[in-house]
C-alpha cells in the first residue's frame, strides 16, 4: 500500500495545470483521487507527476444555463447528489451520484475525475449517456465539446486527449420525463455489476421516447438502442419484452462475482426495473 515516488504540483490556474500536464510524460491529473490513489498504492499506476486540480478556483459548481445545467468537473458526487438545481431539473444525475461508493468516496470523488477515469463499472456513465450530456474539455488550444455518445471509447479510455483536462459536464433538464437509475451493486467494491439509467417521455399512456444508458456490463457504458427503438410509441405493457434486448450484441465482462451471461441477464432485468420506475 505504498506508492512509488512521484512529484506533486497544485497549480492555481487551469492554464498552469495544462502546461504542467504537458511538461513531462507520465504526468497525471489528480481530481478527487479515489480511483487514482488506490491504484498507485497498489502500484498498478505509477505516474511521475500528479497535477492536483483542487486549488484551482471555479471548477466546482452547478449552474443553470437556460434549458441546460452546467456542472464543474471538480464538483463532488456528494454535491451533485445534494444539488437542489439538479434534484429539481435533472434528478437522474443527482440520483445516480447518490449511488456512488460510500459517504467518504462521495465527499472526495468528483464528476470530472470519475468520467475521465472511465471505470467500466462506474455509475455516472449510464446517466451521462441516457441524458445525452456534453463533456467539455480544455486543451492548449482552448475548449472543445464532446458528446456523451463519443466520449467513452474503451476500457478506462475516453475521447479526452492526453494534453486536455475535463472541465465541465453539461446536461439538459429532463422536465416532463420520468427518470430512474437502478443498480445491481458488487457486494465487495460497491461498483455497478450492472447499472441502468433511464429517461422516458410518455404522454397519454404512450411512450414517446426512451433513452437508456447501461454501465458495468461491458468495457464501457452503452446506449441500449434496441430497447429504445422497441419502446417508441409503445406502452408500459411492452417494457418487459423490450427489455429483453438490453444487452443485444454486447460483449460482456466476466469476473468471480458475475459471468458475462449473467451480467447480460441482469442488464435486461434492471432495464425493465429502471424503465418501470421511470414511468411511475
Amino acid at each position, binding site marked *: *500500500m505504498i506508492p512509488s515516488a512521484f512529484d506533486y504540483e497544485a497549480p492555481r490556474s487551469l492554464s498552469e495545470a495544462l502546461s504542467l500536464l504537458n511538461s513531462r510524460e507520465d504526468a497525471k491529473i489528480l481530481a478527487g483521487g479515489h480511483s487514482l490513489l488506490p491504484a498507485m498504492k497498489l502500484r498498478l499506476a505509477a505516474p511521475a507527476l500528479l497535477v492536483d486540480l483542487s486549488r484551482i478556483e471555479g471548477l466546482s459548481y452547478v449552474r443553470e444555463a437556460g434549458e441546460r445545467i452546467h456542472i464543474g468537473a471538480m464538483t463532488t458526487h456528494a454535491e451533485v447528489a445534494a444539488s437542489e438545481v439538479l434534484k429539481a431539473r435533472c434528478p437522474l444525475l443527482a440520483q445516480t451520484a447518490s449511488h456512488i461508493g460510500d459517504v467518504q468516496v462521495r465527499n472526495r470523488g468528483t464528476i470530472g475525475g470519475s468520467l475521465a477515469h472511465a471505470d467500466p463499472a462506474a455509475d455516472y456513465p449510464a446517466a451521462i449517456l441516457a441524458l445525452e450530456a456534453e463533456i467539455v474539455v480544455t486543451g492548449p488550444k482552448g475548449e472543445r465539446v464532446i458528446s456523451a455518445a463519443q466520449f467513452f471509447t474503451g476500457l478506462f479510455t475516453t475521447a479526452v486527449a492526453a494534453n486536455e483536462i475535463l472541465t465541465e459536464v453539461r446536461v439538459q433538464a429532463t422536465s416532463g420525463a420520468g427518470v430512474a437509475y437502478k443498480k445491481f451493486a458488487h*457486494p465487495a467494491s460497491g461498483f455497478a455489476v450492472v447499472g441502468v439509467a433511464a429517461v422516458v417521455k410518455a404522454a397519454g399512456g404512450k411512450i414517446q421516447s426512451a433513452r437508456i444508458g447501461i454501465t458495468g456490463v461491458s468495457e464501457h457504458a452503452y446506449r441500449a438502442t434496441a430497447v429504445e427503438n422497441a419502446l417508441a410509441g409503445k406502452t408500459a405493457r411492452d417494457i418487459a419484452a423490450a427489455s429483453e434486448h438490453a444487452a443485444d450484441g454486447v460483449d460482456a465482462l466476466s469476473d468471480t462475482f458475475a459471468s458475462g451471461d449473467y451480467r447480460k441477464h441482469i442488464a435486461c*432485468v434492471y432495464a425493465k426495473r429502471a424503465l418501470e420506475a421511470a414511468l411511475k
Partner: protein
Amino acid sequence: MAKKNGKANGHAFVGQRFKRKEDPRLIQGISHYADDLRLPGLLHCVFVRSPHAHAKISSIGTDAAKAAPGVVAVFTGNDVKDIGCVPCAGSLPGLKIPNHYVLARDRVRYVGEPVAVIAAETLYQARDAADLVEVDYEPLPAIVDMEKALAKGSPYVHDEFKTNLAFTHVMNTGDVAAAFKKADVVVNQRLVNQRLAPVSMEPRGVVAQYLPGEKALTVWSSTQIPHLLKTQMAVMLGVPETSVRVITPEVGGGFGSKLNVYGEEGVVPWLAIRLGRPVKWSETRRENIAATIHGRDQINDVELALKKDGTLLGMRCHVLADLGAYHQLLTPIIATLTGLMAPGCYKLPAFEFVVKGVFTNKMSTDAYRGAGRPEATYLIERMADIAARELKMDPVAFRRKNFPSPKEFPFATAAGLQYDSGNYQGTLAKATQIAGYDKLRARQKAGWKQGKYYGIGVSTYVEICALGPSSAMPAGGWESGTVRIEPTGKVTALTGASPHGQGQETSFAQLIADMLGITPADVNVVHGDTAAVPYGIGTFGSRATAVGGTALYVATEKLQDKMKKIAAHLLGARPDAIVIGGGRLTVKGSKKSLSFGEVVGAAYSAKSLPEGVEPGLEATHFFEPRNFTFPFGAHIVCVEVDRDTGAISLDRYVAVDDCGNVINPLLVEGQIHGGIVQGIAQALYEEVIYNEDGQLSTGTLMDYALPKAAGLPEFELERTCTPTPVNPMGVKGVGEAGTIGCTPAVVNAVCDALAPLGIRHIDMPLKPEKVWRAMQGGSQIGATAVLAAAEKKAGKASSRRRA
C-alpha cells in the same frame, strides 16, 4: 454465582449493561496499535513475496536492492537459517509435518510466501527496494484442487512425502453399518464449506527492539497469545526465554488469525538483534488476505440413517480438509474439532467421521472464528433440514424429536464429549415463539401464490467453548489470574487471557468490583505484557471469561478471605461473620465495620495482622477447567429470493442463545451481533478463490466481499440461561456462538425458499448468479405452476428411499 443471574444477591455490577472501559481511548484514537509505535532509530521492513503458487527458486539477486537509497539490509532464506521453523502445535498419529521456513529457501509453495526481507530507514525506501529484488523462479504445476491432489499422478506440494495426504483421522462410535442397514431412509449430501479470510480490522504487525547490554528482546506483536508467542519466539531464535518480553499493544481483532506464530514473528526480532536497531513490520491488507491464515475449506460428504418417524440412527461423515501448503500453529487439528461437534444437538447412536488433511499450494488454513465448529454445525444442521424435507417433517419438529431432554445432562455424545448442561427445547421454543413461526409458514405459503420465494431457516447449535481442559489442549488449557489490591485501595487485575476487542477490561472489572464491594472504575485489568502478567494461555476458543475470568474469580476469593481475616482481627469478630459490600467490611448483624481502605491499609502497614497472615494483598490462581463448556442456541432467519436475479434479502433474524450466566449483556450482544454478521457473510458473500494456477483471485477488498451494515435486518436477540457446572461463575463463553449458529440458518432459509423449485442444496456463498442458475435448472414457470410443481416434487425427492 452458580445461581442464575438476577437471583443471586449483592450484584451491583455483574449482569449490568456496563459501557466498555476500553472505548473512550479507542474512539478517540489516543491508544497505540503496533503500527503507532515510534522508537528511536526505528527501521522499517518489507517482505518480498512469491507471485507463484508453486515454483523452484533458481536464484535471488539482492545487489540492486542493497544499493537502493536507505536500505540497511536485505536477507533471503539462506541468510536466516539460524531461525527455527514456524511451529506447529497440533499432533495427530502419522501427521506429516513439512519444514516451514520463515523465508522460503529453494521452493515457494503459495502465492504470498515470503522469500526475502528488506530493512530500510523508511517504509517507502523498503517498499521501493522490494521491487529491485530479482528472484528467478522456475514455475511448477500448482496443486489447487483437494481431490485432484489425492489422485494418482498428482504432483506433490512436498516431494519428500510422496503424497499430498498429511493425515487421516478417524472417529467411530456405535455400529454404523448396522444403523444404515436398518434405516428406513438414508439421505446424503455433499457440502462444501468454502475458504474464508479472517480480515481482522487491524492486520498483523510486529515491532522488535533488542538491547544488547541487557540482552533484552522486547517484541510488540498484534497477537492473541503473548505468552505462547514468547516461548515459541525464544525457541525459534535460540535465545533464553528469560530475555524475551512480548507485549500486545491494542489489537484490532483477530478472529483466530492471531492465535498463531508466524514466520514474520521470527524474522522481525531476528533483524532487531542482527542490525542492532528496532525494526517494525506492518502487514498490508493485500498481505493480510494472501499470507495470514485462512479458515474453513472443507468438503463434507455426509450421510444420515433415519427411521421413518425422524429418529436419527446414524451418521457417516467423510471430510477433506484443505490445509494449504504448510502447517501453521493448529492447522491439522481444526478439522478434527469438526468431528467432535458433528453430532450437534442430537442423540446419535452410531457415528463415523473420517477426515483427510490435504496439502495444496495455498495459504495455510487454521483457526477462524469457530475453528472447525462452524463446519460441524453447518453439516449437521443442513443435513437436519435435508432429512426433515425428505421425511416431510417440519424442520422444527425434526430437531425436537432428536434432542436429548434437559434431564439427560450431562449428556455423553457420539463424539465422546460430555455436554455440561443444556435445554435445547427451551431455546428453540423461545425462538419459534419470537419469530411467530406458524405465521411465518402461512406467509410463506401465501407468497408462493404470488410467485414470491420466501424462506424460513432454522438452525440449532451447540458448540464447544472455554477451551479447555489441559488434557485436550496442545499447550495447556488453564488460565492465570492475579488480583492485587494496591495500598491506595485501587485494584490491579492481571489476566493471562489476551482480550483484543472482547471487552474483558470491563467485564472482569465488573466481576472483581462486585466481589470486593468497590466500583469497576477502581479495577484496572492488565493483560498482554509477559513481563507484567504471570504466564497465561491467551484469548481464543471463547475461553477468556470462562477460564481466565474464573482464575480471577478464585484469586479474588482468596483476597476476600484474607481481608475478612484482617477485618475480623481488627473488629474482634470471627472471619466468617464479616461481610464485604458497599466499600466496607462489616460484622454481620452489627454496626461494627471498617472501610475497604482501612483494611487495605492494615494489610500493607502490617502492624496488627492476625497470626499467620502475610502482609500485602495479592493472590494468584491458575484455573484448570475440568471440562469444556457447551453453549447452545436456536437461530431463525427469514429471507426472500429475488426470482429475477437470485439475489437474497434478509427479512428477519431471531437468535436465542444460551451462554450460561452473563456478566455484561451489552458485551454478550456485541459478540452475538458480530458473530451473526460473519455467519451471514460466509453464507452469502465471502469466498477466498484461487484460480487453477493457484493465483489468488480475491486478493483485495474490491473482490473479497466483507459484510456491510446495509442489507442486514435488525437482530431480534433473546437469551435463556442454563449455567454450567464446570466453573463457579456458571459462565460458558459467547465469542463464536453467533458465527456458528448463523450460517446454516441462512442457507437453510434460502433452500427452504427455493423448495418449490425442487432445489435441495446450493453451496456457499449463495451468490446471486449461483442461486439464479439453480432456479433456472428448476423451471421458468409462473406462480401457479410453481405451486403445482412444489406439490408434485414433494412426492419424489432426489435421495434414495427404502420402502
